[in-house]
């Protein structure tokens, strides 16, 4: 695929599992190259020694492989034609459709000037009360599900995507199992919304290192729609743990000193570069937005591992799913879940009592958890304990379960109803003015 006048190098000096090195001149940092047709990127230059990271892995690359430098960084062709299409990590169609015609833009481009951002202020309603009531999402936010691999995070995410009122949904799938890939494809097709969905997919069948391109591809497309078409864009990234694992593989092959949990020392910056693409643009810049919902799978619920830990410091909250044995359903865990931007909309775009009701309910739910511990340790329960337990069960079923689909006002009304059913006003610790107005008599 060399064009006229492009120099072809044929002498590779070193090969590792993910990189190969050669002597070449006039090469730019981050530049793309092909090695026997496989796409690679410049990661290190020392004089005329060039190290290339080969995305598909170096299996079968001979020392006399043909290397051609392409003189550009990884890029994506963008236009309205992206809508409804499925692509691989290089931005090439995998759905049998024609190639995209459009403007070619570099992926992994520069950051938005922070003074050109607008404070997020639009609620994204999902109908799931465990999210809308306790952890309200806001456009321009970035938030991951912290989930164990056996939890139904992809289903919840697909639900959220379909219910959210957005112009485009961009799926970035990293290490998706083929089954999950087909699941997303079917759900989107059945909902009749394929035309507002763009997917970049790397399945477990594809080489791991290729995954590194997926978030940048998905976000380059998202920036195109948000900046140039002024659209509200929702980006789904699943699973970011597999992305980070790919980073670790590459840094390991490049002999970098690992920091915590064998992850590269730059993990925080690498993840931040992706998540910080979430943005709300002000009216004068068209008013578009990019919201990111991601998945970070945990190993045995351990959030102190470097991947969820660094993610938690970057994202604006996190959502946890948990199976509640009392009601036999998966719920959004109210203790550990958090949306940091919720106060920008709670009580402002929703009813005034939202923040206080949300906190009071969670506090009572915590009292129920304490009562449960007491019960398990064989102690007698007080009347208050028993009331908390009864409250918790109903609260869990009517509010926290992921199969709930109601609007926030209904959620608040349910909460007040449950307060009145089990408690006295002074036990819920809510501002008197709100109690006077909303207490169910």
């Amino acid at each position: 695929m060399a064009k006229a006048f492009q120099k072809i190098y044929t002498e590779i000096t070193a090969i590792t599992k993910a990189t190969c090195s050669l002597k070449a001149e006039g090469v730019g940092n981050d530049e793309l190259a092909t090695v026997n047709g496989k796409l690679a990127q410049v990661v290190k230059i020392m004089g005329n020694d060039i190290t290339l990271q080969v995305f598909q892995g170096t299996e079968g690359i001979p020392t006399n492989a043909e290397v051609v430098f392409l003189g550009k960084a990884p890029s994506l062709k963008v236009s309205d034609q992206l809508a409804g299409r499925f692509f691989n990590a290089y931005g090439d169609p995998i759905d049998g459709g024609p190639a995209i015609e459009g403007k070619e833009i570099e992926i992994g481009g520069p950051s938005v000037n922070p003074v050109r951002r607008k404070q997020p202020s639009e609620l994204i309603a999902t109908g799931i009360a465990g999210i809308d009531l306790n952890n309200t999402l806001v456009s321009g936010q970035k938030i991951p599900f912290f989930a164990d691999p056996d939890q139904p995070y992809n289903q919840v995410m697909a639900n959220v995507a379909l219910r959210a009122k957005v112009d485009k949904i961009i799926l970035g799938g990293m290490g998706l199992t083929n089954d999950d890939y087909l699941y997303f494809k079917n759900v989107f097709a059945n909902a009749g919304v394929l035309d507002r969905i763009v997917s970049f997919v790397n399945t477990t069948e594809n080489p791991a290192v290729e995954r590194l391109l997926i978030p940048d591809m998905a976000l380059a497309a998202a920036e195109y729609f948000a900046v140039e078409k002024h659209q509200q864009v929702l980006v789904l990234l699943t699973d970011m743990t597999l992305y980070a694992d790919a980073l670790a593989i590459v840094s390991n092959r490049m002999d970098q000193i690992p920091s915590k949990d064998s992850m590269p020392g730059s993990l925080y910056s690498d993840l931040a570069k992706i998540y910080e693409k979430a943005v709300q643009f002000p009216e004068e810049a068209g008013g578009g937005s990019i919201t990111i919902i991601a998945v970070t799978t945990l190993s045995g619920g351990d959030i102190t591992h470097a991947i969820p830990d660094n993610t938690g410091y970057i994202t604006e909250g996190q959502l946890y799913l948990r199976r509640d044995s009392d009601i036999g359903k998966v719920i959004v865990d109210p203790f550990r879940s958090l949306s940091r931007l919720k106060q920008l909309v709670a009580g402002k775009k929703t009813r005034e009592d939202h923040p206080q009701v949300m906190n009071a309910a969670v506090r009572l739910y915590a009292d129920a958890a304490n009562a449960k511990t007491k019960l398990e340790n064989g102690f007698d329960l007080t009347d208050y304990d028993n009331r908390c337990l009864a409250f918790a069960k109903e609260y869990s079923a009517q509010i926290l379960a992921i199969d709930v689909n109601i609007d926030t006002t209904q959620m608040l009304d349910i909460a007040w109803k449950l307060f009145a059913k089990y408690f006295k006003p002074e036990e819920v610790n809510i501002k008197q003015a709100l109690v006077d107005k909303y207490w169910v008599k």
Partner: protein
Amino acid sequence: MTQGKVKGIIANLVTVEVDGPVAQNEIAYISVGETKLMAEVIKVTGDNVFVQVFESTRGLKVGNLVEFTGHMLEVTLGPGLLSRNYDGLQNDLDKLTGVFLKRGEYNYPLDKEKLWKFEPLAKVGDKVEAAAWLGEVDENHQPHKIMVPFVFEGQYTVKSIVKAGEYRIEDTIAVLTDSEGNDHNVTMVQKWPVKKAILAYKSKPRPFKLLETGVRTIDTANPICEGGTGFIPGPFGTGKTVLQHAISKQAEADIVIIAACGERANEVVETFTEFPELEDPHTGRKLMERTIIIANTSNMPVASREASVYTSMTIAEYYRSMGLRVLLMADSTSRWAQALREMSNRMEELPGQDAFPMDLSAIIGAFYARAGYVYLNNGKTGSVTFLGTVSPAGGNLKEPVTEGTKKVARCFYALEQNRADHKRYPAVNPIDSYSKYIEYPEFEEYMANLIDKDWLPKVNSMKTYLQRGKEIQEQINILGDDGVPVDYHEEFWKSEVIDFVILQQDAFDKIDAVCPLERQRYMLDIVMDICRHDYSFDNFNEVSEYFKRVINYCKQMNYSEFHSETFEEYQVKLNELLNEKQIKA
């Protein structure tokens, strides 16, 4: 000037072959096409100079031209810094064009055309030295002193000084003669290398004046002093940012500098959006008028993250030299440490714990040491109070950044996951946290004069109740509610009253968010009075129900305007309730 050529590139670490002398930390510019990228020398071996580039190195090639500047990274100091939003290298973010940051776009941080109303303070013939006040201009209603540049060594005589009037920052406002008879023109603007502390003051005593923040768990329980240092470590989701924002909004400082170092862009945007609207509770002027924001968010170039904390500190020291009280907040110092780690890693240095550089704790120590309360050479005082957040990996406080900081910071505000889970905000653990200033006799004396002669003893007794409450809670957890005497429940619930009424505070409630010191004293007196009494209860169920009602009334007081009708009504109700059960001595 020395020039060089690019020889190697790994991410933002570039090796340069040079043709002349270079200095450690010298600034250089690397040409890529039309743009020039700023870089800093971080290591020299023979003709090979290692520079860290403050921007993306995409497209950089071997052989690109590198020009050295002969100076270290400097900030420009002069009137007009307030209310601005800078990046870590002091570029004015508002002046940059376009939605996206373009690499290699740098600008002048001040306004060269603006006229400032200058009033001379020095007279012809005055003997002056570095940082002496020559005159002042009005900057957002604060006196901004025009000083003898910090780089001037020894004594000078004022040869001439301009009359009161309007001048631009680059106009000569005074001519100074040095001891050898040479004349030096002084303007309103000067430069200073960020990595060097400004030492133009007479002495640095121990801090002893309270810096009021309006946050009860700080001012009452673990106060920080003007010129003091403190740090807030906490796992994510424990309310570090909310607490920091509360302090930056409410603290009784003349100047607030916020260094957003490697954190979320939306958090800075919150400050950009709110500060121009919100009022400073002490002066009634807009918060933004006293604020400078240094934004180097997590997606901005990593190398300038390190620069951003030094840029902020240097600007803080500049305002301190004017006799002002400066509060510097850095969120988060862990991101700065990580930037150091990335660089050290690329230079293949032998790593210390968790792959951080070996000298990390020395670097942190030297930085915290730049804060302080000082007596200036003219006898006036000024202060830089520094509060840093730490984001410990995995919430584990036994990691290098937390440990390095703990050695040098005098206040420690431990945010606790468990408190956050139970929505007990601010989630500062009252027992693990500390303020070393409480142990200073000069601080105790200051507080006795300021608020109440028994203030610190009261605070101590409050902490004893909390400690006791915690111990009893553990016993109840082991022995069960009826395994301990009813008295124990009473003791435990007294500590809960302290927790709910004094320690917890609703940062999102208009009234409760800011609690002035006088109000803190009033509530502490009420709560301590509740604690001092004995009560008559028949069983433990009664205890919790009773104290929940007590807490409810106190909280309603916290939510009401101080001494308003509603406030007084709840106090009457509270007193009635207390009379029901209190045993009169």
